[in-house]
């Protein structure tokens, strides 16, 4: 999937500009804005992590405790001590990874096919429209019919019921996203490959896909995150064996208030695999610059 290194473009597009102070000012402004944005993201997250280490009594105080004097790992112990947590975790991992893999493969192929099929505009638009219509129909209303379908296929309480449900949400989006990406790609490269005798699969795999890598990377990240955190579909078809972490987190909102410690601990546990995944996929987000090199 990684583009070959010979296609790498110059490291950066340095721009000559007059007005040294103005350039400095813009640079500072950029750093400032990005810092504020990062803080806005990180402060609530850090607070979540801090809460996962706080004693129950320190959760709600006036003023709030930012740096706790006493910390505890009991919430993590509670979370990991429960044998169900590990089952939830493995269910979540299966659901998110299968959903992501299937979505990315199926949707990328579909988008490529649609982009190269030479369909008339209105047919293409119709297909995408049907996809999106199904995507955005409120799931709340299809929960009961979906429950019955899954029951009749004996898929109730399996990860497959959740995965199939998620695919209906993720495939339409990724297909549309990748369709735009593929339509943006220059045909010349593929045509050159065609002249060299490359078949459709090779052209897709060797030529189109590497150029579309940033799109695939963001699609994969978005799909994995969505599937990892989805609650409604998962909770309606998974009652016991197939429950996922997102259901576990919701379970800490009880009729007696929120069990803050265990919830924060579980939420923190949920974050870690996704961050690792995002870091792993990140590198493909900048490689798409091959496109410019080819065109030039």
């Amino acid at each position, binding site marked *: 999937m990684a583009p070959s290194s010979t296609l790498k473009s110059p490291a950066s597009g340095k721009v000559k500009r007059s007005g040294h102070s103005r350039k400095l000012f813009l640079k500072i402004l950029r750093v400032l804005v990005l810092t504020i944005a990062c803080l806005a993201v990180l402060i609530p997250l850090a607070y979540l992590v801090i809460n996962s280490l706080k004693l129950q009594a320190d959760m709600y105080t006036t003023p709030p405790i930012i740096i706790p004097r006493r910390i505890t790992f009991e919430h993590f112990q509670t979370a990991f001590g429960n044998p169900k947590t590990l089952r939830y975790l493995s269910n979540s991992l299966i659901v998110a990874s299968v959903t992501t893999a299937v979505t990315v493969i199926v949707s990328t192929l579909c988008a490529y096919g649609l982009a190269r099929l030479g369909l008339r505009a209105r047919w293409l638009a119709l297909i995408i429209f049907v996809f999106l219509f199904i995507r955005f129909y409120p799931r709340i209303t299809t929960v009961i019919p979906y429950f019955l379908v899954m029951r009749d296929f004996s898929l109730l309480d399996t990860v497959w019921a959740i995965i199939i449900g998620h695919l209906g949400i993720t495939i339409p989006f990724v297909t549309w996203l990748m369709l735009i990406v593929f339509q943006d790609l220059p045909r010349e490269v593929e045509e050159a490959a065609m002249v060299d005798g490359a078949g459709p699969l090779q052209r897709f795999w060797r030529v189109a896909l590497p150029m579309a890598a940033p799109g695939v990377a963001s699609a994969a990240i978005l799909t994995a995150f969505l599937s990892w955190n989805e609650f409604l579909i998962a909770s309606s078809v998974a009652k016991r064996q197939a429950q996922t972490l997102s259901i576990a987190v*919701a*379970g800490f909102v009880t009729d*007696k208030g929120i069990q803050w410690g265990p919830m924060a601990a579980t939420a923190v546990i949920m974050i870690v695999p996704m961050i690792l995944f995002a870091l792993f996929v990140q590198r493909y987000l900048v490689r798409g610059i091959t496109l410019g090199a080819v065109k030039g």
Partner: protein
Amino acid sequence: MQLSRSTIMRLLAGAVVVAMLAGCAAVAPAAPAAAPASEGAAAAPSVEGAEITVDYMQSGTYDKAAEALKADFESKTGAKVEIVTAPWDVLNQNNITDLTTGTGAYDVMSGEFWIATVFDKMLPLDDYVTRDNYGSEFIDGIWAPGPSNFYDGKRIGVPYSADAYGIWYNTEVFEQCGVEANWETWDEYIAVLDTLKTCLEGTDVAPMVHYFGQIEQPAAIFLGMYDGYLVDKDGKYGLDREKAVAALNKMQSLLDYNPEGVLGFDFNAGNAVFLNGKAATMVGWPSFIRADADNAEKSQVVGKWAMANFPGPGFPMVSAWNMFISKDSANPDAAWEWIKAYANPENGTKWMAEYGIGSPFKATYQDPALLEQFAHFYPAQAANLNKAKSLPWTFAAFEAFFRNEGDFHQGKVTAEEMLDNVQKEWDEIEVPGALVQLAELQGLTQK
């Protein structure tokens, strides 16, 4: 130890309640004695090898208790139990979907009057109850229709938790301000709040706290202040307008005694205010706070708080989780054995201490050792439980009420306008038969 006047009063009140409860027990029909418990057990069919699924709310209390019971139950009966837990909404949703589609995935279901629309799909339990001479150990008010769920005059639910809306207070603050928690009505309670407000002027202690930001909760205060009907002559939802307006305005006046920003307080925030000693009184669910308030790690009011009487003329709302057996259950006998194993005085007392589950059993509130240890809590709580009533509202009816009430708290509408808006929504709602019966049995129907 020198006994203060209020302690003596509390002990006296406790003794009265205990005597009352004991009296009730004595008057309870002695007929089932003809079939001794051991004989009843022998008559019960074996449930060896049966597999049942039971569901509880994922709360870290009821579900934990079930897990703790599981191994012992399985080895004693030879049945296999699967415990399913879900968040509140999902639990109700699962139960209703399961019952209405005839899926039959759960043998024992947990629920309250919120799922009254499917009460007709629950198995009547009267035969089991008579056979095993079960039920005499419950607090009478909790074993009665309302807290116990009935359909068509037949028992379908066995309560396994009991809590009633209550008011508790900080005894230290009360002593400092020279007031006593001896109110019978909300007007008397508000008079006490007035005294407290003057006394606490300039401190960071508020006379009262409630979780107004938990938007469905203030309705329970309204019900305490309102003594009219909830279901009208035609079997539709309605309210006695004059009484309702008075109650709403009285309720609004309570906001003056709360800490700043209280309209945004959820359970956790409200509880924290009282636990940190920053409120003289609190209105809410006692079971949410009892265990924490007595725990020095979580509370600064250990030994400095006590339950009080829930004032009239309305009633304290009850929360009583029931266990039901689904009509679709393939193993009702095993399901009943589980219910018996789960809901009994021994567990009730133990789990109240361990998990904070409000016990529905008399014995818990009569145990001399516990009475002494929890003199600040048990007697008043038992008295409140005994007069508590169950809401005959569906969730849609409840939601119409508390959302419009929220608009009223925000000052967007007057009490009269709010009632008009509520009534407009209620007119669209059909009252389930089980809830009409429930209202009648509790005297909440228009005469």
